[in-house]
């Protein structure tokens, strides 16, 4: 499936009392997955928030252009802060389906259940009737992705979506994003402080530091032949593991 979502950020500046983003330019082509990596304070999450029009109070876009072609939806690091604690997760997804499709309540519920099943929420019909706090971290993150998918997005913006998850759950969520790209042609902008996580999803990476883009390129090239200290630092920060011997049966 070919994607239609496209993002072009050109010389983006964000300021409060002082300027925090000093001219960010990056692009996501249809169907492409681009990672934004950098340490805390590099401005990577702020860039994402500016794209979504969700800048924190007191900050504004002070220059440049943001162009989104298609519908964008966002997945956050902490689903609990985004989900309504007083509503069952199934109705929250159905609610979004209803505003997007303007269908009947029954059709919206059916669609919500489909979405929850498509993100492989186990026992979707049962868990849909639960409240956010009754789900595990991994289950909540799946609900959040289902909620984003309910907007029928062409572009998925991910802000550290797996940072709070167990490693096996993280693997499942990363695989899910890869599958959604393949099935729906979603374009993805994926922000993380962890280059190893970004490398699982993105074929291209943009490196940020102190509100600027300082490097970028194809993920494999950057990782195997880092050309700047910024990239070397990100590569070195990924703690190595010995190569695991053998497959399941050799």
């Amino acid at each position: 499936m070919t994607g239609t979502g496209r993002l072009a950020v050109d010389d983006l500046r964000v300021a409060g009392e002082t300027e925090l983003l000093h001219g960010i330019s990056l692009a996501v082509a249809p169907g492409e997955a681009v990672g934004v990596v950098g340490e805390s304070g590099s401005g990577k999450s702020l860039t994402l928030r500016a794209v979504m029009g969700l800048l924190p109070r007191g900050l504004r876009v002070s220059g440049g252009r943001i162009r989104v072609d298609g519908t964008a939806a966002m997945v956050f690091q902490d689903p609990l802060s985004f989900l309504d604690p007083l509503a069952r997760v199934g109705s929250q997804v159905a609610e979004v389906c209803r505003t997007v499709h303007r269908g009947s309540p029954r059709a919206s519920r059916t669609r919500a259940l489909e979405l929850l099943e498509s993100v492989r929420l186990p026992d979707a019909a049962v868990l849909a009737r639960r409240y956010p706090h009754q789900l595990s971290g991994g289950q909540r993150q799946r609900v959040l992705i289902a909620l984003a998918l309910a907007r029928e997005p062409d572009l998925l913006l991910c802000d550290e979506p797996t940072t709070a998850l167990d490693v096996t759950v993280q693997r499942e969520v990363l695989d899910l994003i890869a599958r959604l790209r393949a099935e729906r042609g979603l374009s993805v902008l994926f922000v993380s402080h962890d280059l190893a996580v970004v490398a699982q999803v993105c074929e291209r990476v943009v490196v940020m530091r102190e509100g600027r883009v300082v490097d970028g390129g194809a993920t494999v090239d950057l990782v195997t032949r880092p050309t700047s200290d910024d990239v070397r630092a990100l590569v070195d920060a990924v703690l190595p593991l010995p190569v695991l011997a053998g497959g399941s049966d050799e």
Partner: protein
Amino acid sequence: MSESTGRPSVAEGTGGVGVVPEAAGAGLEVVDASVEFAGRRVVDRVSFGVRPGRILGLVGESGSGKTSLARAIVGSVPLATGRVRLGGMELGRRRSSAERRAVQLVQQDPFASLNPLLTVGQVLDELLRTSSSRGRAARRERAAELVALVDLPADALARYPREFSGGQRQRIAIARALAVEPRVLVADEPTSSLDVSVQRTVLDVLAGLGRRMRLATLLISHDLSVINAVCDEVAVLRAGVVVEHAPSERFFRHPEHPYSRALLEAVPRLPGRR
């Protein structure tokens, strides 16, 4: 860093790896330990030992019981079965203040565990005053030593927790744990609220001091690359049960339990890295 094993080298501590709990008589021994909450068993008959100067990594996902086990070891929740021994002596159900000092916990969120109204110097001085017979000048000297041990500048003593970065705060938490001269350090996810870029510094400080001061260290983490960076042995906790316990060299290349292998395969690795 040693490319051949993929493990950063940490000074000292190159002795043989012993997995048998009985051999750990001089350090921390956890024998047949269970923890229950509201009648539900969350840790089920777990046994292991950590000798002085050694580091055991306990890996587990959420719900594995690893934090409950940590709490039981430091004595903040009771054991349903089994016992915790230190240097061959059983730690009582109600621990004496000396026993409590001997087993120190370093937690995930350093900010939550530091009093925001006290300077680092005041925090350390208070601990030194209640845990030792040092006079004022000796306490000041020891506090300066502790701050230096965790690689913070001397002026850190006069500053408040909010003035430090996450990694620095975690090093302050380590200094605070060391202030009472413990024999066992239990570090529960000490780096998981930190950026990957500062993880390594905190781990190096923790491991380096543990080895130099001959502490028996239990490093609890969900992150196998953190465990690999500093631990001599690995124990895998799943649903309250240790499913594998092996020396690091063997575990990371040849895990025996399917769950251990699944955990190792799930870790995101950099493409093309040797």
